[in-house]
């Protein structure tokens, strides 16, 4: 699949934003005061909204995006739109209460945490629902999105809490969260290794229905140039450096944040340092998400000479 920057940005940024909203909601200790009550929600909401706005750059007609709220009964993309807006509205109310009263309303916060989880789940289901992309068509896809979202949120929230409390136990928990997230991702990668189109039972023989005659190969494409399908779904260029990029993702997204977080925990340093762990984690996730798209094989490639091009 074509790794569109807008969609990568959308899934990573809004994942982190809703993760942070969930952490704020469940009551992770954070600085008080009017300024914090304004800036911290601005950061969480800003990440989520920046991601959602980026996703509209992927649209042919962004001015009609409001129509996407109508089909929540059948469409995961529509559900994602609805869940994100409802959660953001609740979060706006929460922020208002926080700014006015100085109190963080736990009942509303828990509702926001639930809404955030639902939003991230629906985002992942946009991809996981597609039978045409066997890499994505697994329950591990939403699991991955959820653990990364929560881990990003937790690491950032713990970092921000460094302004008021020095709680290196929180760093210990963050170590576990980061490790767990990448273990789930490792399981996803293991799944992907055995989830090629051929593994899922789709071949050029089933695509053409000519398998009972013999082995099928493409002799001529229907057209000499590219088309929407080949650029969007028969994208193979991105896979060239997959192994190297996977190492980069692990280095930036796993090793570096783990190192920082472990150091904070071991030396009982200020958890403020964990903001850097968050930045590294995000950088790693951009690479991970790039691979999520670039490595995925789409069934339509079988009509264009197979997934290897």
């Amino acid at each position, binding site marked *: 699949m074509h790794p569109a920057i807008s969609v990568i940005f959308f899934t990573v940024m809004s994942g982190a934003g809703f993760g942070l909203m969930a952490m704020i909601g469940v009551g992770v200790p954070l600085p008080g005061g009017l300024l914090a009550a304004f800036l911290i929600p601005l950061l969480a909401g800003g990440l989520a909204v920046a991601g959602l706005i980026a996703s509209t750059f992927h*649209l*042919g007609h*962004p001015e009609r995006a409001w*129509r996407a709220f109508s089909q929540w009964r059948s*469409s995961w*993309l529509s559900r994602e739109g609805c869940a994100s807006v409802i959660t953001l509205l609740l979060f706006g109310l929460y922020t208002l209460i926080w700014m006015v009263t100085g109190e963080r309303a736990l009942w509303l916060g828990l509702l926001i945490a639930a809404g955030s989880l639902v939003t991230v789940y629906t985002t992942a289901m946009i991809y996981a629902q597609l039978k045409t992309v066997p890499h994505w068509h697994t329950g591990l896809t939403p699991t991955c999105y959820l653990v990364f979202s929560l881990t990003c949120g937790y690491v950032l929230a713990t970092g921000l809490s460094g302004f008021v409390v020095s709680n290196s136990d929180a760093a210990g928990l963050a170590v576990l969260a980061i490790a767990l997230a990448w273990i789930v991702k490792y399981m996803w990668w293991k799944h992907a290794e055995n989830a090629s189109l051929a593994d899922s039972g789709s071949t050029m023989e089933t695509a053409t229905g*000519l398998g009972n005659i013999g082995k099928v190969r493409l002799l*001529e494409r229907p057209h000499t140039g590219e088309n*929407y399908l080949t650029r*969007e779904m028969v994208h193979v260029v991105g896979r060239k450096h997959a192994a190297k990029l996977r190492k980069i993702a692990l280095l930036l997204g796993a090793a570096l944040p783990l190192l920082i977080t472990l150091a904070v925990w071991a030396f009982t340093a200020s958890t403020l340092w964990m903001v850097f762990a968050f930045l590294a984690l995000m950088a790693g996730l951009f690479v991970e998400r790039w691979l999520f798209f670039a490595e995925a094989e789409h069934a339509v490639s079988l009509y264009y000479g197979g997934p290897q091009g």
Partner: protein
Amino acid sequence: MTSLPQSTNKALGLVIDLDTCVGCHACVVNCKEWNTGGYGAPLADLDPYGAEPEGSWLNRIHTFEVSPADAPASIVHFPKSCLHCADAPCVTVCPTGASYKREEDGIVLVDEDMCIGCGLCAWSCPYGAREMDPVENVMKKCTLCVDRIYNENIPEVDREPACVRTCPAGARHFGDFADPNSNVSQLVSERGGFDLMPEMGTSPVNKYLPPRPKTKPSSCGSATPLTAAQPKAGGLLGWLDQALEKLG
């Protein structure tokens, strides 16, 4: 609403005969010609006369080579357009309701004014039946020539999809699969019509007819090759020929 209808009164679609198709692309051209001026936005082309032409088309012909284990390879021309699936994933993924399947005849259509151009329907289609128009930025797909088949302003003989009407080989057939006595249902049962990628669970309406078995060269028996005729030479050349023969 982008939920699929429980059932459709008719199941209109195509039968494509892979035995008969000669790969001339006439259906592709006539499809583009009709649909660029009919339903919805025109089907745009970019750089049509330049080095890298591309554009949106609703029907395309791939060409495959099939190699049996015990016979020479054969060529199969393979027309592909929307299969108007009974269980169409492109309809249910649509976030706006632009993509829908008609209850009356099962045709899958896009309401282009509602399409936001997210492309998710194209991602959900295993057959590559949907292409984003590069100029209008809305999703284009085969309409089964919905503006021809019910059109009382054109002669009755033309009230079938443009690709079917134009096929010089008679490789394309249009009809109602819900009616077991229709021409298309008969063809499917007689010739063993099949679904493309049944494992995707899309229940396509369009069916493909397999190429008829080829006669294998070994089963034809052996024939004695003819020897080339030897013309008799006369005159000087004839004398020379005889004289040289005698010399051994």
